[in-house]
């Protein structure tokens, strides 16, 4: 086993000769065999392949032709995807090979990766703790060196939050820059695929490859100019940052995280950057708005799982019983909760009061955030109010929903946002969240890279792995 393999980035692996690439691929396969039983990151592994390209792990709600797509749900039992998602097609075209499919909260609904039919994924920094979610399998796979990079999907923070809790980089691009074709829909107007990596450079390399206008996804947007190389050596002192007061005053924000974050703020100020604490009153409504829109869309998106065409079908005396029983037995409790919530908010008589009003708040918030990002270059805050909780520690769904406060604004407004780790490897990871204007993804990545340089979480340009995984 070649120990150097574990620190190779996208560019470096792509420049290896095929024989060595095969070595890299097998290196990761071997690590999965060794460690997956401890952490439960992968739900399927691509061992019988003739291609040994650049290995990448893919969240199991993204379709890979010929492989199972489970969405960590019983209802898709036995489903093999007949087609490749656009992102998968693009990665394959650039000599990537899908290493395996990673665990998630059922249908990406959750922020702990505990709501999975395969059981929870464990946090590489403390296996008694959760990874965050819903892309917990992808984040933990990267954080434990079982995959060099991974794809996740982010509807309310599902890439950034587990990246934060696992001490790696998680990037959610601007809505419309990465095709959703082949990503199993949760909330279509907010879902976005993004990379989970150990450096902003790798996030950029993967983003470059998967981002494009896609004829198969009408919500994708064409970007006029291509993607230049990231500018190196930016001075953070040249930028202005906004910190929403509502985030800092949230009652569930842990003191330790607040302290870590304020240290970054001090550091920025010392460099000459302008950092202002600004009140954005609409932020008090983002969780409510999100939990009206996302379950509404989800209730409709999940209607296709009826046991008729594919997946698990249960017996019934007539067709409606077949559908009802198949869904009742197929979906887990969190998914059901959201389907019920969404069915209610879309129903006649409540649509105006709930769903449509949430759409109005969303438009207003989008305008408000646009105004703020005219005045400031970036909005920064902690990615999560808490470090990784213990598995099973949180029982009340509302507590979970409130944990999303720091990430969902980016989804509601379609903005690009990234989480990078900011604590040294002796402690549980804490993430810094940076959000920018829509379609300024490249500038955001450049600034994130400048933050990496001042973060104690990095070693040689890569997020540090916890000792036991780094050898």
């Amino acid at each position: 086993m070649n120990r150097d393999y574990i620190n190779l980035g996208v560019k470096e692996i792509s420049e290896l000769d095929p024989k060595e690439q095969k070595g890299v691929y097998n290196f990761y396969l071997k690590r999965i065999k060794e460690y997956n039983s401890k952490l439960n990151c992968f739900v399927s592994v691509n061992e019988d392949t003739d291609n040994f390209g650049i290995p990448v792990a893919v969240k199991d709600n993204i379709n890979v032709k010929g492989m199972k797509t489970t969405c960590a749900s019983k209802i898709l039992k036995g489903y093999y995807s007949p087609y490749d998602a656009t992102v998968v097609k693009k990665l394959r075209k650039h000599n990537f090979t899908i290493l395996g499919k990673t665990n998630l909260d059922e249908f990406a609904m959750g922020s702990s990766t505990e709501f999975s039919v395969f059981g929870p994924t464990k946090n590489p920094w403390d296996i008694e703790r959760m990874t965050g979610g819903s892309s917990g399998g992808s984040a933990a796979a990267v954080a434990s060196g079982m995959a060099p990079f991974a794809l996740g999907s982010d509807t309310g923070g599902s890439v950034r939050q587990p990246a934060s809790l696992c001490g790696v980089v998680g990037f959610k691009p601007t809505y419309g820059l990465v095709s959703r074709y082949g990503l199993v829909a949760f909330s279509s107007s907010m879902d976005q695929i993004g990379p989970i990596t150990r450096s902003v450079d790798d996030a950029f390399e993967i983003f470059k490859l998967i981002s494009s206008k896609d004829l198969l996804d009408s919500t994708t947007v064409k970007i006029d100019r291509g993607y230049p190389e990231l500018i190196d050596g930016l001075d953070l002192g040249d930028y202005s940052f906004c910190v929403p007061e509502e985030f800092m005053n949230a009652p569930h924000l842990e003191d330790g995280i607040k302290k870590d974050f304020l240290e970054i703020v001090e550091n920025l100020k010392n460099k000459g950057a302008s950092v202002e604490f600004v009140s954005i009153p609409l932020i008090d409504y983002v969780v409510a708005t999100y939990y009206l829109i996302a379950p509404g869309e989800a209730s409709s998106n999940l209607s296709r799982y009826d046991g008729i065409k594919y997946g698990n079908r249960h017996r019934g005396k007539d067709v409606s019983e077949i559908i009802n029983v198949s869904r009742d037995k197929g979906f887990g409790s969190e998914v059901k909760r959201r389907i019920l919530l969404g069915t209610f908010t879309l129903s006649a008589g409540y649509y105006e009061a709930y769903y449509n009003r949430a759409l109005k708040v969303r438009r207003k918030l989008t305008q408000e955030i646009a105004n703020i990002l005219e005045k400031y270059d970036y909005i920064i805050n902690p990615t999560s109010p808490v470090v990784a909780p213990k598995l099973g520690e949180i029982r009340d769904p509302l507590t979970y929903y409130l944990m999303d406060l720091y990430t969902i604004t980016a989804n509601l407004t379609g903005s690009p946002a990234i989480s990078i780790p900011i604590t040294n490897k002796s402690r549980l990871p804490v993430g810094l969240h940076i959000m920018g204007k829509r379609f300024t993804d490249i500038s955001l990545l450049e600034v994130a890279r400048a933050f990496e340089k001042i973060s104690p979480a990095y070693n040689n340009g890569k997020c540090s792995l916890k000792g036991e995984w780094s050898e």
Partner: protein
Amino acid sequence: MYKTKIGLEIHAQLSTKTKAFCSCPADVFELEPNTAICPVCTGQPGALPVLNEKVVEYALKAALALNCEINLRSSFDRKNYFYPDLPKGYQITQYFTPIAENGYIIIDHDNKKKIRIRRIHIEEDAGKLIYQGSSSISGASTSLVDLNRCGVPLIEIVTEPDIESPSTARKFIEILRDILRYLEICSGDMEKGALRCDANISIFSDDGKNTSNVVEVKNMNSFKFVEKALEFEKNRISSVLSEGKNIPHETRTWNFSTKTTISMRSKEEENDYRYFPEPDLLPLVIEKPFVEELKKHLPELPWEKEKRFIKEYGLPEYDASVLSKERALADFFEAVVKKTDKPKETSNWIMTEYLREIKELNKDIEGLAFGPDHFKELFDLMDSGKISQKIAKDVFSKSLRSGKMPSKIVKEKGLEQINDEEVIEKTLREAMKENEKAVRQYREGKKGVLGYFIGAVMKKTKGKANPELVNEIARRLLESEEE
């Protein structure tokens, strides 16, 4: 006295090459089950719809022809319900803002009778269930699903309740079918389900004191059944109303074997469709110049053509209306007139001989080798006296079936008309000799016998004798040799 109020909801399948939101073929009527499907139209996890621009173009054509206002920005929305033939669990439709609103069709140009169109919207068709052991899903031992039809583009045309009788309802939908065919956007074939009609009917008394609930009638899959089913409903509702009772607000289905309607469900049992904007598609934005362009190239519509035929060719109203009913027929008529320059004669031939033959052969105009040039030759042969009208019909039939030119047929079969007076006289004398009794009768004043001799000569000459000459000579011979 009771009056009737009917509003129609008509689904028309658009004859685009591909489906509304994927690239599967849209013409699936004769395909093997589940052979025109893909991840998108079968609702595979993660698949997304992409709007077919032709669908928008076709819907706009319909909207313009039906005098609608076009919404330059319209929405796509989801209509949610569970059914095995609906793989996504929702139908993509246009609920909040349709592509077009506020139109009308004039169904009687004399008294300007208008039926208003409330809206036209784009949506996708569902699949088909095949029941085993029962005619409906309840009671079937097994049901099979054919998803070929999923995603076939439809427009739904909703009228205001302006229709006052079942026969007018039928007339409306027939006119609508003609228009859709003219626009070449829908085959209009009700039996094949390319055009489907649901109706809302209510009955009210003259004085307005008594009004029935509205009943929705479905499954009327022919023009005749639309009229029959509504006639049945009208009578059923009137008789309940005249007993001082009311009928339930419900949906009923037409059963064509019993010729009655049967209750399907009460309106209270109806689904809450939980409409909301389709997040996978952008709002539909139409550029005004695009609409203008379509408007400019909109074909002449049936009633416009009818008017022009009367004015330009001096055709009687009846001829003009028959010939303008179908675009292909109207075009054919005009192409023939261009050659023959005889509108009325052309019209006669097309309306009688031509349409009859086509019907017998079960072919359409495009499927025949017989064209305007054939007609022109046929007319020339008649005009020059080479063949009689009667022979012409025979030649026409042969030419139409074989595609051979009429002159060739006349030559091959020796059908040229006999104009030789000597030949005709000789034949006539033969006939007179064979039936001296008839000769006597004529000479005794029974002039009607003339027809017998003409017939006899035609028979002997196999119809080739010039009938005018036969008539003239017969008259002369029978009268001049009168003693």
